[in-house]
């Protein structure tokens, strides 16, 4: 067994060396040349050094360590695969769309005064898995081909929201987290007293857990999207939930995401907070029509899960935190009259709705204009 485990270690060390040599032998674009490449190499080196020191320590020679050596290998192997699949793949795939998106995200960071290095944006996702972000890997992944479209792009701000949530250590909703938890603790006591625990306790316990586990973060990411891009985020969200989930599913929640209905409500609350009254009215009108067909599918216990007062509390805390952190909102950019990515996205949504037959030409022109601003060739 020991020889077999030593073979596994040797194999992984060799794989690391091959990938590292490949990265070192490539010509890298200046966007990723220093930080991203160096960090990726360091992550591979860190795995390598752990395996090498285990080999040198002698623990691989003794049976008493067999299981532990195998668990260590399993973790190292998973870490290797993760870095290989996400960072190394993003490096190999760093082409024209990635160069374009790095310019876009750098401009977004600058416009909203986000005091951090922008992540790499890679088109290594697909339409099933859509947009995703992993702060640890400093990557936002978008579906391939996304560089030709504007109407999904507000969702990139949602992913930026995940990075900001990690950067701020969840502080933009830390009081809300306590308020939400207390609310559910109280509700659980109430239904026990009411004698309705058989019906509702399980769902309330689960909701209490999921709010802290993932829902609160998702809500704050929706707020980042709305705070930074106004109504365009609301339209993109409506597009996603109508095309992706279907009208009958808006009250369904998952381990990772709160129900779409509640997400739309918090987005509308943020539009109101930003003073975007006309936009809010238009979004709400469309949303009401959408809701009219779906109310019949609303589950009985749904009203317990996302009380309006909790959503309002989250919006207030988030807005104050972002203002204090001096992060520019869409309203601020709008009032300054400067051309910004968020203004472009709002214009795109207005054009698509008011003049759909001209939208194709508009979108191509807008993207080419953006590319020209970045010094990139036309598509």
């Amino acid at each position, binding site marked *: 067994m020991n020889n077999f485990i030593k073979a596994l270690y040797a194999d992984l060390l060799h794989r690391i060396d091959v990938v590292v040599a490949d990265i070192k032998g490539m010509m890298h674009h200046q966007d990723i040349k220093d930080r991203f490449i160096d960090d990726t190499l360091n992550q591979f080196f860190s795995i390598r050094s752990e395996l090498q020191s285990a080999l040198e320590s*002698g623990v691989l020679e003794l049976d008493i360590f067999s299981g532990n050596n195998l668990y260590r290998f399993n973790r190292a192997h998973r870490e290797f695969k993760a870095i290989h699949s996400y960072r190394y793949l993003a490096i190999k795939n760093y082409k024209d769309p990635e160069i374009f998106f790095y310019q876009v995200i750098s401009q977004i960071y600058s416009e909203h005064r986000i005091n951090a290095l922008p992540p790499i944006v890679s088109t290594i996702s697909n339409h099933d898995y859509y947009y*995703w*972000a992993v702060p*640890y890997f400093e990557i936002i992944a978008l579906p391939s081909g996304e560089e030709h479209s504007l109407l999904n792009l507000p*969702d990139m701000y949602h992913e930026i929201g995940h990075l900001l949530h990690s950067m701020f250590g969840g502080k933009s909703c830390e009081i809300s987290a306590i308020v939400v938890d207390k609310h559910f603790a109280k509700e659980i006591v109430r239904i026990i007293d009411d004698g309705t625990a058989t019906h509702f306790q399980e769902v309330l316990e689960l909701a209490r857990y999921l709010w802290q586990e993932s829902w609160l973060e998702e809500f704050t990411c929706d707020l980042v999207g709305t705070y930074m891009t106004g109504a365009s985020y609301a339209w993109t969200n409506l597009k996603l939930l109508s095309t992706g989930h279907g009208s009958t599913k808006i009250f369904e929640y998952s381990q990772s995401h709160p129900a779409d209905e509640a997400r739309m409500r918090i987005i509308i609350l943020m539009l109101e907070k930003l003073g975007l009254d006309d936009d809010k009215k238009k979004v709400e009108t469309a949303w009401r029509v959408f809701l009219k067909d779906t109310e019949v599918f609303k589950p009985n216990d749904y009203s317990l899960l996302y009380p309006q007062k909790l959503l309002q509390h989250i919006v207030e805390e988030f807005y104050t935190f972002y203002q204090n952190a001096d992060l520019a909102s869409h309203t601020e950019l709008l009032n300054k009259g400067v051309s910004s990515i968020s203004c472009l996205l709002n214009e795109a949504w207005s054009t698509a709705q008011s003049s759909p037959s001209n939208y194709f030409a508009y979108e191509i022109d807008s993207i080419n204009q953006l590319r020209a601003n970045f010094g990139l060739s036309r598509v």
Partner: protein
Amino acid sequence: MSDFSLLYKKYNSVSNLTNDLNNSVITLKRRRVSTIKEYTDKHPKLAVTEDELTKANTLLLAILTLLENFYKEQDTKNELYELMDNALFQNQILKNVVFKSEIANTLAKLKSSKDLSEKDLANIDKFISILDNEAAVLFRKLRTSRG
């Protein structure tokens, strides 16, 4: 807006817990074998420092306390709550009365700074194997999540 971010967060949490526990057990085992001349002559680097030993005991105490607390109350804020859906964790750890009592003994030894026995370490190894299994499950889901 995919499940990827959450899954990665969960994976990372379980994986780090597994690693902390595993490295601590390796340190304690190294301490045991480094008293045997036959081994140290062949592998002088097996020896561990007092600092490494203290760190290992502190980590073991913290993680086994997590488990003890989880036996008392399956609190959603406990890091081990991630494992609630894992059948091995349910059957081999949570519902296993013998294991529960043995872990309580191990924890008592750690609290009173007594050396752990081979049996204690074997029990912790069993817990590590279940954590490693959960990390593997989450990692597989992570890959599936990307399509």
